[in-house]
C-alpha cells in the first residue's frame, strides 16, 4: 500500500498540484482572492491577533483571573465573544484553520517534520518575540494582516503608517538577530 502512495507522490501532476511550492506571486493572487471574498462574506477583513487577546482572556480565566471587566473588553460584542467561548468564536475557528491548513499542506507534500527547539537562544527569541508581537499588535490594533494587509486594502492611511514603522521595527529586529540570535 505504501508503494502506491509513494508512487503517487512522485507523479508529475501530483507534484505540481500538491507538492511543488507555489511562487510568491501565486500566493499573493490567491491570498487576495480569499481576502476579497472574506470581506464580501463577513463584511469585515481578515485579522489574526484580535483573537489572541480573547485566547489570553480565556486562558486567564482558567487560572482564576477575570479579564472581562477590563475596558478593552467593554463593548457588547466583546462581552458576547468572551462569554460564548472558543467554539463559538469565528476568529478562533479561523485561526485554528490556518494551523490545520498549513499542516495538511505539508502532509500532502510529505514534507511534515516536527522540529525541536535547538538552543536556549531560540527559547529566548520565541518568548521575547512572541511577547513583543502580542503587545505591539494590541497597541496598533492589529498585526501584519489586520493592521497592514487589511488596513491598506481598505484605503486607510493607518495601514501605510503601520507599514512604515513595521519596517523600522524589522530593521531593529534584524540588528538584534545578527548580534544575539545567530
Amino acid at each position, binding site marked *: 500500500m505504501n508503494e502506491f502512495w509513494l508512487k503517487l507522490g512522485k507523479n508529475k501532476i501530483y507534484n505540481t498540484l500538491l507538492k511543488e*511550492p507555489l511562487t510568491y506571486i501565486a500566493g499573493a493572487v490567491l491570498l487576495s482572492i480569499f481576502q476579497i471574498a472574506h470581506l464580501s462574506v463577513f463584511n469585515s477583513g481578515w485579522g489574526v491577533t484580535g483573537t489572541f487577546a480573547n485566547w489570553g482572556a480565556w486562558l486567564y480565566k482558567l487560572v482564576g483571573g477575570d479579564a472581562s471587566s477590563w475596558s478593552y473588553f467593554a463593548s457588547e460584542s466583546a462581552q458576547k465573544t468572551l462569554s460564548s467561548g472558543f467554539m463559538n468564536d469565528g476568529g478562533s475557528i479561523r485561526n485554528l484553520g490556518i494551523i490545520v491548513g498549513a499542516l495538511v499542506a*505539508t502532509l500532502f507534500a*510529505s*514534507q*511534515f*517534520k516536527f*522540529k*525541536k*527547539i*535547538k538552543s536556549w537562544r*531560540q527559547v529566548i*527569541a520565541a518568548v521575547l518575540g512572541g511577547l513583543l508581537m502580542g503587545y505591539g499588535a494590541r497597541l496598533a490594533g492589529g498585526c501584519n494582516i489586520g493592521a497592514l494587509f487589511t488596513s491598506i486594502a481598505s484605503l486607510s492611511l493607518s495601514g501605510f503608517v503601520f507599514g512604515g514603522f513595521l519596517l523600522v521595527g524589522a530593521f531593529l529586529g534584524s540588528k538584534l*538577530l*545578527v548580534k544575539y*540570535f*545567530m
Partner: protein
Amino acid sequence: MKEINLDCLGEACPIPLMKTEKKMEEMAVGDVIIVAIDHSCAMKNIPEWARKQGHNVEIEEVDDGEWEIIIEKTK
C-alpha cells in the same frame, strides 16, 4: 576543490541563509557547500539567493521535510 557541510537543521528563518552567505564568503571558487535544512522557507530562499549570485545550485529532498542544498561557488 573543497567540500563543506553546513548543518542548519532546526534553525529558524533567516539563520540558514545568513549562515550560508557567511560560509560562502570564506570559500574559494570551485568549492562546494552542502547545506542541510528542514525549514520550508529556506528551501526556497537559499536557492533563490544563490542563483541570483550566479552560482550553481541544486536541491534535493532527502527525507520528509529535510533538504540538502548543494551550491558550487562559481565566482
